[in-house]
């Protein structure tokens, strides 16, 4: 962080702001999706408790898949932070 020009400083600040906004908006969708999946799995287990292990497995895989959009935004945020 020694001598940087004004233009470089503006670019860096914009990248950091963009990274924060990217993470914040990218976490919205996966949060809603994972909560929805967990709620539906709870309903399923309450209706048929003998299938609990199968439902839990499917729920975990589904949550991990719906989490991937959040992970993409994390990767973009890391790129913005570390590569500018």
């Amino acid at each position, binding site marked *: 962080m020694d001598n940087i020009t004004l233009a470089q400083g503006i670019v860096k600040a914009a990248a950091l702001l963009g990274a924060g906004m990217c993470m914040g908006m990218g976490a919205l969708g996966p949060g809603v999706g994972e909560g929805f999946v967990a709620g539906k799995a709870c309903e399923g287990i309450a209706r048929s408790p003998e299938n609990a292990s199968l439902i839990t497995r499917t729920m*975990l*895989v589904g949550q*991990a*898949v719906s*989490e*991937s959009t959040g*992970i*993409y935004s*994390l*990767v973009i945020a*890391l790129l913005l932070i*570390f590569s500018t």
Partner: protein
Amino acid sequence: MTKKKSPILKIFIFFIIIETALVFVSSGFNKQLQIGFDDGKFVFRNIQSHYDLQEKITEEFQIDEYYRQNGETPKIYGSNKTYEFFKNIFGKTTAIGTFQLLRMLLIVDILLLFIALLIKKKLLKRPSQPQILFEMVYTALEQFVTETLGKEKVNFTPYIVTLFLFIWVSNMIGMIPIPGFMEPTRNLNVPLGLGILAVSIVHITAIKVKGVWGHLKNYVNPVKNPLFLLDIIGEISKVVSISFRLFGNILGGAIIITVVSSLVSYVVLPVGLILFFGLFVGTIQAFVFTMLALTYIGVEISE
């Protein structure tokens, strides 16, 4: 309700007290406490240490970039001769990262081979304890394969079990507190290679089952399938999604562990963080990668 505290809780409280006392003794977060022997005398003193979070993260996750900025001689964990060999091949700019990645991959491979030989040597009718463990893993994954692909395609089980064990050991090996140890899956090249391998196996299996033209006519027949370009893009995005998911989870977990541990100055909380991001997320992601590879194969075969 018993009034006895469990032994784990006792150990936990003991470590909290010890660590809090050490933080107060060292009096300040930018100082380092040195305990040990120096010049033959027992030493217990503060050292003023230069600590910068940004620098630490760069050193941990972009090691080539760090040494390019600082220009110090790199600290190499491993054989110097091998490093010189890699430096001749890859050039000076990316040699350290490549060397560390290949070293960790070799360690994982040797560990898996060692376990396999050890188990194979003592295969018994009445299984010993480690044999029971691995038979459990194998049987569970074999059941998934039978459910997804059907009884006659059960010969995919060795590939699926190998994929699961390799990714799981790769994710777990970062928890071992030895300097220079890191998860190989933290580098994008490893998940990308595994993803390309998985999708190639999907297509090779489909060609084996349906024949070359039977498989290709889904993609290159504009009359039957006008949006065939989108299908090709979908195949590429399969690789991207399956590999970036593993990579992002492991890298994000490692960065969160580093940042939060340094914020609480390494008191107690890192244990919980490592248990969550190392053990739980690592196991779930290895399982998800395996299940998705299996599902891709199942979708192509079932039609």
